[in-house]
């Protein structure tokens, strides 16, 4: 079993969603704490096992070996209890200080609002000094090396925001607003997943955090603030027309068009996102088409209905979606 677990621990480092693979200050603090406590506990367990084996073998031995006096047993047990008290006091203090180090500082550079819904993440970047607020979904961009404050809310049931490589998790509770400190030390794409059971598609409620150099981040912000591009390609243009004519527009917003629905994710720059439908599929024209053609088979129970489309319409709409960079 030891072999097995080390093997698994090593392989864990290739995944982008692991508490043992930290790339952000909070997650690094947490990993240190985790390793410390686990190591200490492993020692305690081994010690207890040694005592157990000794006790079992001793009792099996000859009767003449002489019994340990009750007094010595009492002393040993009391000592063990005293050690237990000391260790848990130490662990309590260690967790207290770790808690402090992962708290949200007043000075956070950026605040991003995340509103969870069944079963996707609405991400709101508030505009400052006159710049407009914009929305995206299931993908959060942050600058590396800065403290980011996430403001976590829920539109329906309890969800939990968890990107283990960057920070511990925090619930999103209807009627309340919670805070989480996020910080990435290295550029990269960090995957996270809803951790609180939230219904049928709790399993497919992933979120991507894209950490990039501040200059890249600034560029991204600028492009996201812009309205959707008008499609150049004729397929995409007829796709846009179909999109606006079909029920799609009732649920989705594409800024710069008449589509202003709010039930589903904002699609203004859907083509620029890594994945669609909360981490379900990589964003390609094919996957967009597959999703739009039959969302209920790909993600059973999700809140987007199947909208009947001809195959031409489907192709064009997918082309349009893909063009929304």
């Amino acid at each position: 079993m030891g072999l097995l677990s080390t093997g698994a621990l090593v392989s864990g480092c290739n995944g982008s969603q692991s508490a043992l693979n930290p790339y952000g200050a909070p997650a690094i603090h947490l990993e240190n704490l985790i390793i410390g406590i686990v190591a200490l506990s492993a020692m305690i367990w081994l010690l207890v096992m040694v005592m157990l084996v000794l006790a079992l073998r001793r009792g099996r031995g000859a009767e003449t070996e002489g019994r340990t006096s009750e007094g010595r047993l009492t002393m040993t047990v009391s000592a063990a209890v005293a050690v237990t008290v000391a260790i848990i006091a130490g662990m309590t203090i260690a967790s207290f200080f770790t808690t402090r180090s992962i708290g949200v500082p007043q000075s956070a550079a950026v605040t991003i609002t995340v509103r969870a819904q069944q079963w996707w993440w609405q991400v709101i970047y508030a505009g400052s000094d006159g710049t407009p607020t914009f929305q995206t979904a299931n993908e959060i961009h942050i600058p590396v090396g800065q403290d980011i404050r996430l403001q976590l809310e829920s539109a329906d049931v309890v969800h939990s925001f968890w990107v283990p490589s960057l920070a511990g998790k925090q619930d999103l509770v209807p009627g309340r607003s919670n805070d989480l400190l996020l910080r990435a030390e290295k550029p990269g794409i960090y995957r996270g997943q809803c951790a609180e059971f939230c219904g049928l598609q709790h399993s497919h409620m992933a979120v991507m955090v894209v950490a990039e150099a501040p200059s890249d981040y600034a560029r991204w912000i600028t492009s996201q603030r812009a309205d959707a591009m008008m499609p150049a390609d004729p397929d995409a243009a007829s796709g846009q027309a179909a999109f606006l004519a079909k029920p799609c527009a009732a649920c989705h917003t594409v800024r710069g068009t008449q589509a202003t629905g709010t039930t589903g994710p904002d699609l203004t720059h859907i083509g620029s996102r890594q994945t669609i439908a909360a981490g379900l599929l990589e964003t390609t024209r094919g996957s967009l088409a597959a999703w739009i053609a039959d969302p209920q088979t790909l993600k059973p129970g999700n809140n987007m209905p199947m909208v009947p489309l001809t195959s031409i319409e489907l192709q064009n709409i997918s082309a349009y979606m893909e063009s929304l960079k």
Partner: protein
Amino acid sequence: MRAVADREGVRDTGMEAVELDRRLAATWSTPPGLWGALSTVDHKIIGRRYIVTAFVFLALGGVLALLMRLQLAQPEARFVGPDRYNQIFTMHGSNMMFLFAVPVMQAMAIYLVPLMVGTRNIAFPRLNAFSYWMYLAGGLLLWIAFAVDTGPDVGWFAYVPLSGPQYAAGKRADIWAQMITFTEVSALAIAVEIVVTVFKQRAPGMSLDRIPLFVWSMLVTSFLVILAMPAIMIASTSLILDRLVGTHFFNPAEGGDVLLWQHLFWFFGHPEVYIIFLPAVGMVSSIVATFTQRPVFGYLAMVMALIATGVLAFGLWVHHMFVAGLPRLGESFFTASSMAIAVPAGLQIFCWLATIWAGRPIFKTPFLFVIGFIVVFVIGGLTGVMVASVPFDTQVHDTYFVVAHFHYVLVGGAVFPLLGAVYYWFPKLTGRMMSETLGRWSFGLIFSGFNLTFFPMHILGLQGMPRRIYTYQPEMPWSGLNMFISLSGIVLAAGFLLFFIDAIRSARSGPVAPANPWGASTLEWATSSPPPSYNFARLPVIERLEPLSDRSDPLGIVEGLYTDRRELLITGVVEARAQARESSVGSSIWPLLAALATSAMLIWSIFTPWAVVWGSIPIAVALIGWFWPKGDPEDET
């Protein structure tokens, strides 16, 4: 010698053994046939029934676990869809907690406590019968609902608003909430019976410091039940009200609060886990004492540890809500209190180790399960201490790490001792021994299968696998371990299967057991295996902690009880001095009728609030029938 007869009846004073047995049997036996089965109030028959039913639920819950493991063995598997999967894990958790683990522990107590304290029946025998029927009805409700695709699908702690009127249409969540009512009513009833039996029906001379540790553990457990279960009753009732008549307890839009549910649930839910664990601790103490051939080291310390655990249990509930967004400072308090539980837990482990150290262990199957318990429970306890740390928990809460933690403590900490206890008390329960060979095999399979199944879950959790997901994507690095876990689950299931086979086979054709096959020293072994309907022909008098430990010095006995009405002794709470003879009620069909009436009302009330009004009429009738004196000899004074 001549039997003493007076105005009211025949006393046992000086009566010949054969004559006494005949007379007591005539007074105490349950009548044969179906009517007898439905109206019996014998704690041994009811306890056995309870135990068997609970194990059936274990098997059913285990089958659900295997279905989950089948689905999770591969990424994006399609054996069951999300809707079924959600029902399955909710059923697995609810079934295991409410229909298996708590009832099975209380059931063992129903059977054993009256024997261990040396009395003839449990206090309030009719309530006991009622309790079983309620439990059975609750279990049937849940499983029939599941069979017709109305099984609850909101998790075993049914967080609002997911379980509320807005997001859980249909009756699934109501089934869950009402199943809670059934099982809590039955659990509360047993708790009251146990408390009163232990307080007032102990054999004369069994002062507080001579109560067997198992009985102590059941006493503390019963108080936990009494103080914790009202919280879940209120919570589930509020949920039903929110769903049925539009109250707003959990609706933030109208001044309700979502976290209120979590507080109420866990104020019950945390003590609940010790309600499962403490009886197991008592079983371990019994087994350790017998198979090391010496009393458990540190009796007083063990009792204090039980009580301390019970008290602390009410100060920990927030550790299930560390990431819900409560104030951090308050949470640190709950870290400290949760970790503090390690002190009484550790104390008990150390005392058992000291007992083994100073004793002469005999490696029979019950003791093997106890050794397995120590190995596994310490791991589970230590992971408990880990998740008790707020920052640590932010990474592992709601992941497979927690799933690993609680199976280590539930299966390792409670089911292992329980299986050991079944091997240990099986001769008392059935009059036959279980097979030592099969016992060793099933222990081996369960122990290794268990660790192979659940240890890797710790790693999965740290690798970011959340719990309660019906599937995961192939690009996640979890498929290998999940396949491994699922395959190991088969080994575990094989172990359980072997256990079931052994139990069923031995009950029919195992070697006949003597009264005290293990040379144990508590009172239940002082009577035949299985005990007669009246438990003890002559009630024992207790002069030391381990009444059977000294063969040369037989038990003292009581004389002067009537033989032609069901009579037992009432003793004082502290010293257990005899205070009165008391009659114990006889068989009655009314508990069953009352349970039927109550069940009808509870199920009906899922559909309309008026059920409470109209449904309470038959209940009242049944209760009057239950309590109205019938002129039995037991009613005389």
